[in-house]
Each structure stands twice: as structure tokens, then as C-alpha cells.
């Protein structure tokens, strides 16, 4: 086989969702040169394309719009800034450390950029990855597939659904089901209270009228051909019962789409399963950066977008040859925190995006007392006025790290 054609943009951004498009708009607008966005979907925009409800754009655009409108806005802004957005363009692997292999209808080619930004996002774990046994009927979806079907392809779903999970996205699934004429009959959550924002949960109970079974898991999917029911179990009593439904939506339980990062040999964080990054969003490979929900599965789209804006500065410094990262210290999430992002603090680096560290908790704390420790010393302790709740990102101000010694040992972040 002959060597595929090579193109050499200044920046390659892999993934055209909120993070990738915002980074592209910023970089192209600030003179980064040829900024190429490779998006494998038919249209760029990422998950908001098929999240047809409002609430997008709050933190990054200071206005609120629907997901599809937000996606179109981000595409337009990046295009107007001069970014080269190529859809149906999939990076399938790496020819070498800095050369991506690409498949598109225009052909198979290689891209060697001076800087690369991974913005591949996250996906929900499907039923199989959650190891839920039973039959394999039709009518079992993730939220992503459901919203794709309903909003992009206008396909019917069933009449009566069980929603598995109680994260923010689970309520988004409930809204979509309603719009498609399918009744969300029950939401099943393993946690003692439904996750996600309190206000939204309230809205869900009263406005959407979805009953929530807490401390409950799905133990079996039942139905030949079409789904007929799920069997659920109460975690404390062990009691099981069947809930009739022709549709099951497995929501949340996000995992970063990290395949390209892993196949590139980039170090992953064991907690997030996304690339290990510092507050400037550098990965372990010089010249390769990462942004968005690939790094913190998952925060809202606007937070992912602001990662994209944040990473642009460091990419520009790299293009100028002025990026010389100093040695840093590791940030470690202690239980009940599952992970923290980013994970490396370097003395010369900017504060993280929005001045926040992002964490994921397995336990609910109404008034979380966050403690920062290093080498046996308490660096900071502060009680925050917002709760730490499972099923949603818990954000803490990075100013809590002000007293960290850049030459000390790992920094532990915990509660109490």
C-alpha cells in the first residue's frame, strides 16, 4: 500500500463537541493558524445535538438555549473564527506519536499537527458493561441512543419505560421519553436519594411525575423480541419484584471515550479513566492536550466548553515554543471521593479552568468539609455551602490549594 497523504495543520482537535469546538474557536480566533477539528459524526456539536431541552450555555455563553441550538452556535462560532471543521472524519489510530490516521469520505489520510487536543468526550455505560443479565430484547437503550433516535431520527420508542440511574442525564432521558409519548414509569437508583440537582429532582417528582426507587438495582431484563419487564432488587431488604415496561434506558455511569488516548500510550488517571492532566490540561505526551468530559465524566456541557477555552492558552504557548512545564505534585482523591480532575499541580501553571477542581463523590454530604493534606500536614480545610452528591460533579475552588508546597509529596483531598 502506498503511504496515505499527509496534512500538517497547526492544531488537530479530535472531537467536535462543546470542548473541541470552543477550543477551536479560541485557537483560530487567536491566530493559532490552521486549526483542524476532526468530528466523526455527520454534524459537529457533540451530545447537545440530540439533547433537545434547554439549559445549555449558562456558564460559557451567559445565556440559556436548547442543546441543538447550542451545538449550532458553537459550530458557527468556530467556523467564523476560521477553524476547519471536518465531519464524518474519524481518527482511527496513530501512525506514530504525533501522527493521526484518519478515515473520511474524502479518503484515508494522515494528520501531523504541531499540537493535538483530545476532546473525545464520554459515553454512558450500556447495559452489558453494567453486567445486567437476562434476555436481550429490543427496547433497551442508553440515553445517548434514545435521544439520537427521538431527536435526530424521529423514530418511535415504546410506551412505558424504566430509567436506570438518577443522574442529571436521567432526567434528560425522562424528558425525551415524555416527548416521544413514552411514560417513564419508574426511575431506579442505587443511592439513598436520587442524584443530580436537588431542584431538578424536585421538578422530576412533581412536574414529570416519575416515581423513584432508591437503594434499588436492576437484576434482570426480561422479554423475547420486545422488552416486557425488568426485575429490580432493593439493596437493603433483598426483595425483588418485576416492573412491566417495554423500554429500558440505562443512563449515566459515564466512561470517557479514552480509546485514542490509550492507544497513543498516554497515561490515564485510574479514577477518571481519562488522560492524566495538569491544570494547564497537558497530557503525559508533550504537545498533546485534553479537554472536556474526556477528563471528568461528566460535567455539564458549558463546563466542558470552558475547558476548551482554558486549554487554548497553553496550546498557543506550546506553538510559540514557550511552554516549559515545571515539575509538579500529584493530587489524590481520598474516599468518599472517587476521582479529582485535573490531577497535577505545577507551580508555574495557571489555575484550573474556572478556578475549580472537579471531584466525584460516592457519598452525600450536605455541608461538605473539604480537607487538603500534604505530607501529614493539613494545608486547608473549608466547609462549603453546596452539597457533595453522588451522580454529579462536585466542584471546589482551587484556591484551597494555595498553601500546597510545589516540592512536597502528593496532595490528598478528602472530607472531614
Amino acid at each position: 500500500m502506498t503511504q496515505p497523504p499527509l496534512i500538517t495543520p497547526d492544531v488537530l482537535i479530535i472531537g467536535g463537541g462543546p470542548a473541541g469546538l470552543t477550543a477551536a474557536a479560541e485557537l483560530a480566533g487567536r491566530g493559532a493558524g490552521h486549526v483542524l477539528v476532526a468530528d466523526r459524526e455527520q454534524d459537529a456539536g457533540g451530545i447537545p445535538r440530540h439533547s433537545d431541552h434547554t439549559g445549555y450555555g449558562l456558564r460559557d455563553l451567559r445565556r440559556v438555549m436548547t442543546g441543538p441550538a447550542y451545538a449550532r452556535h458553537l459550530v458557527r462560532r468556530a467556523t467564523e473564527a476560521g477553524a476547519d471543521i471536518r465531519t464524518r472524519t474519524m481518527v482511527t489510530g496513530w501512525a506514530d506519536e504525533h501522527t493521526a490516521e484518519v478515515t473520511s469520505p474524502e479518503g484515508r489520510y494522515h494528520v501531523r499537527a504541531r499540537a493535538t487536543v483530545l476532546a473525545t468526550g464520554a459515553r454512558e455505560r450500556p447495559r452489558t458493561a453494567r453486567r445486567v443479565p437476562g434476555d436481550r430484547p429490543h427496547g433497551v437503550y442508553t440515553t445517548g441512543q434514545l435521544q439520537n433516535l427521538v431527536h435526530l431520527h424521529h423514530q418511535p420508542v415504546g410506551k412505558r419505560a424504566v430509567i436506570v440511574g438518577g443522574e442529571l442525564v436521567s432526567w434528560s432521558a425522562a424528558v425525551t421519553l415524555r416527548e416521544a409519548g413514552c411514560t417513564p414509569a419508574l426511575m431506579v437508583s442505587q443511592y439513598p436519594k436520587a442524584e443530580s440537582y436537588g431542584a431538578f429532582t424536585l421538578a422530576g417528582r412533581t412536574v414529570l411525575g416519575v416515581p423513584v426507587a432508591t437503594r434499588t438495582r436492576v437484576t434482570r431484563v426480561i422479554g423475547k423480541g420486545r422488552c416486557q419487564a425488568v426485575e429490580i432488587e432493593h439493596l437493603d431488604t433483598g426483595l425483588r419484584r418485576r416492573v412491566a415496561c417495554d423500554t429500558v434506558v440505562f443512563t449515566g455511569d459515564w466512561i470517557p471515550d479514552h480509546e485514542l488516548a490509550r492507544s497513543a500510550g498516554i497515561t490515564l488517571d485510574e479514577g477518571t479513566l481519562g488522560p492524566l492532566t495538569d491544570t494547564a490540561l497537558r497530557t503525559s505526551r508533550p504537545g498533546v492536550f485534553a479537554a472536556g468530559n474526556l477528563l471528568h465524566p461528566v460535567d455539564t456541557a458549558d463546563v466542558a466548553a470552558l475547558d476548551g477555552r482554558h486549554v487554548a492558552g497553553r496550546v498557543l504557548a506550546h506553538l510559540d515554543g514557550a511552554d516549559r512545564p515545571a515539575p509538579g505534585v500529584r493530587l489524590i482523591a481520598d474516599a468518599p471521593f472517587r476521582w479529582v480532575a485535573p490531577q497535577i499541580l505545577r507551580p508555574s501553571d495557571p489555575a484550573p479552568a474556572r478556578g475549580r477542581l472537579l471531584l466525584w463523590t460516592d457519598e452525600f454530604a450536605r455541608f461538605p468539609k473539604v480537607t487538603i493534606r500534604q505530607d501529614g500536614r493539613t494545608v486547608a480545610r473549608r466547609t462549603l455551602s453546596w452539597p457533595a452528591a453522588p451522580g454529579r460533579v462536585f466542584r471546589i475552588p482551587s484556591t484551597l490549594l494555595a498553601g500546597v508546597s510545589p516540592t512536597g509529596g502528593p496532595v490528598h483531598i478528602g472530607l472531614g
Partner: protein
Amino acid sequence: MTATPHRPHDGVFDVAVIGGGIVGAAIARELSGHDVSVALLEARDDVGDGTSKANTAILHTGFDAKPGTLESRLVARGYHLLSAYAEETGIPVEHTGAVLVAWNDEELAALPALKEKAEANGYAHCRIVGADEVYGVLPHLGEGALGGLTVPDESIICTWTTNLALATDAQRRGTTVLLRHAVTGVDTGDGVGADTADGYGGGGDGVTTLHTSAGDVRARWVVNAAGLGADHLDRLFGHDRFTVTPRRGELFVFDKLTRPLVDKIVLPVPTSRGKGVLISPTIYGNVMLGPTAEDLTDRTDTGTSEDGFDFLLTKGERLMPRLLAEEVTASYAGLRAAIDHPDYLIEADPAQRYLLVGGIRSTGLTAGIAIAEHVRTLLEEAGLKLRPRGDVPEPPRMPNIGEAAPRPYEDAELIARDPAYGTVVCFCERVTEGEIRDACHAPLPARTPEGLRRRTRAMNGRCQGFYCGAAVAALSARHHPDDGCGSRPAPCGRPAQHKDNR
């Protein structure tokens, strides 16, 4: 469908083969290489949708068969026949080799006898190796392996493509493939099952009528390759010689990112305490753990179970803890047609012009083409006149859905010729629009999402449709096969005779 010279004018096929699994498809292909008209009847809406779709997909050397059995002979021959056929047709095969790993003294002590057994089966390349060598080739194996037996020629193969290649080949050779034709009753020419009993030639014509869910099909000879339903069908012919017990095997398929952990098939050593589970690379670049073995009564229960999952996870934890730290991409359950007979049960009944192929366990994937040869011989001995044709068409060239050879998304020249191969629709499995289009317009087209999965791998990947499910569905709807067999859920209601006259 176009008419072929092998479609009978009187509506009576020379041979009806019942069962569109690997064995039935191989038999139909073999017979239609001769001057006879052949119908292949399949109860479901696709070939290869039963036992053949969910096995461990290993191309066996036959090293561990029971020496002297028909199974031993046919698996050994089938290995060579299928290897050659795979080369011809493009069925994906990877010659990974296997290692039986001994975890205790009993298993270690069993290895020499297994090596001798392999030799008795005509396979001379097994070698007993120490723990160091086991860990040399399988560095991620769990702790505590004491030694092993290597089987360098055990291989992995795409069972789906094998079935499709054989059935497509049979069709090219003139076999009439009748999907959604579940046999519900039988009238044999000699009166059994019919309301007359006037001896040979019941209706006077020596023709057996198969009553099916889609109308009657008439044939002079009938081959029963009905797998899980073979005993029921056998009883319709008046026999009572065996019972099929559906044996459920559950398995996990792990994320492609695990493939570097396992480069060989890791087999258990069979002992008095039964067979363990295996770990195997898959032809699609994943790693598989399984199967369980559980006898059921329900022949349709292909669901997975909590007990099965627990069993696999416990076994897997011992075999390769690293594997269990990774994501599960899919879980399956397949039903093997276990019978109360220690060997393949292949018998002709010349008086009824009927032949049974029963008890074909998971080795049937490997043995299929050899079984077909054997069946052809038995039929000839029973009186079926078979004259080889001089005009047998070339076997089909199948689309490659394996990882060992380049796939369309990697083929620059192909994409340049047809950009549909440059549009990746299923990202996880890198399935392109061109492949989905082709599968919908193939000689045996994909009619269901499952059929599309088996032809292209679409939606089989780690996201299970999160990204692509809706797009794949839309695309296959656009290319919906129009082959006269109707669309789901409307059944194919045309009697066979009508199809014959089209």
C-alpha cells in the same frame, strides 16, 4: 431471486435440508455441487441464528476428541477443509494457537494423557511445557499456573462469516434458501406421519411433504440438521432415538483494549471435576471469557443469568485478574444441542429417504464441511443418485469483518473508488456506510439488526449503540432488503411453490 437450473419444475425438490446453521448450510452446499435440486429450510428469519451464532468460535484441531469416534475423524478433516475454504472465501481466521493451563496437581498429571490422546487423534504437535513457558506466552495469566500443554494449531475463526459463506455458496450453486419455514409436520412417502400407510411411496410418488409455517415444501429426500430441534423433527419421522438437552453457555466479551493481554487461546484442562472456562482472543479483536455449561429444559432460553455471571467472574478472577479490571463489551448465552449419545449421531434411513444429523456439539463449526461430505456419502449409499456438476460456480468472496486483515475503513483505494467506505457509521467497530449498504443488498441480506450485526459487526462494540444505534437503524431502513421475503414483522407468507415460479 433469479431462477436457477436447479429449481424443480414440478415443485418437488430432490433434497430438503432442514436447518440453516453451519451444518445444514454445509450440507446444502455440498449437495448442490451435484445435479440435484436442493432446498435449505430455516425456521428463523436468518441463517445462522441459532446454536451456530453463539459458540466459542474456535477452529479445532480435534486434539481432545475421543479417539476412534466419528467426531474425531470429522473434526480432524474439517479443520483442513475449513482452513482451505476460509482462505478461498475470506472467512477471517487467526492461527493463535492454544495453551491448556494446569492449575493443580491433578490437572498437571492429566497433561501426558492428553498429549497421547491428541496423537491418537492424529495431531502430533502438542507439547508439555513448564510454568515459565506458560507465563512466557501468557504474561498476564493469574498466579499459580503449574504448567501446560500447547496446541499450536488451534485457531480462532469467524463463526458468523463461516455460516454465511456456506449458505451463500449453497445459494449460488442453486440451493433455494427458504427462511421462516419452521417445519411443523411431516408426511413421508412411506406413510409415517401421514394418514395413509400403504408402504413405500405412500402417495405413490416417494415424495415427503414438509408442512411449514410458510406452506408446504415437498422433497424426495430430507436431511435433518435442525440442531436444537433435531429430536423433535426426528420424532415426526417416527423415530425415538435421542433427546436434545439445551446446554446453555454464557460468555463475556471484553473491550478491545484487553486484546494485548491475551494472544493465545487459554484452555482449561478437563478433569474429573468437569471442564473449566476458557479465555480466548476473538476474531474481532476482543477477548472472550466462558462458557458456562448448564443444562436447561427451555430450548429458547438464551438469556444470561446472575449465577452464570458470578461463575464466570470467579473463574476469570483466578485466570486473569487484569482482564476483569476492564470493561465488558457484551455478554451472550448460546445453547448447545447436547444429546444422550457420546458421538455425532449421523444415520440414514433409506426406506424413508431421510437422514439425521444429530448431536453436533460446538465442534460442528470446524467439522461442518467434513460432516457434509460424510452425509453426501451416506445419502449415495442410501440410494440418492448424485452426479457432480461441471459448472459449479466459484465460492463467494466474503466481506472481511476480522481484525487480522485490513478492513474497508483502512483501505485508501477502496475509499477512493467508493466514499461510502470512508464514512464510519459504527465508531467502536469501525463499520462503514458501504459495508452496511452491502450487507442489506447481499445475496442473503441482513433483515434484522441482529443479522446486520453478524454481517458487519455494527453495534457490537463497546458503546452498544450509544453513538451509532440510531444512525445504523436509519441506514439499514434506507437499504431495506427487497428480496420478496417481506419486512419485519410481517412474516414471509409465500408458500414455497409460489417462490419457485417467480
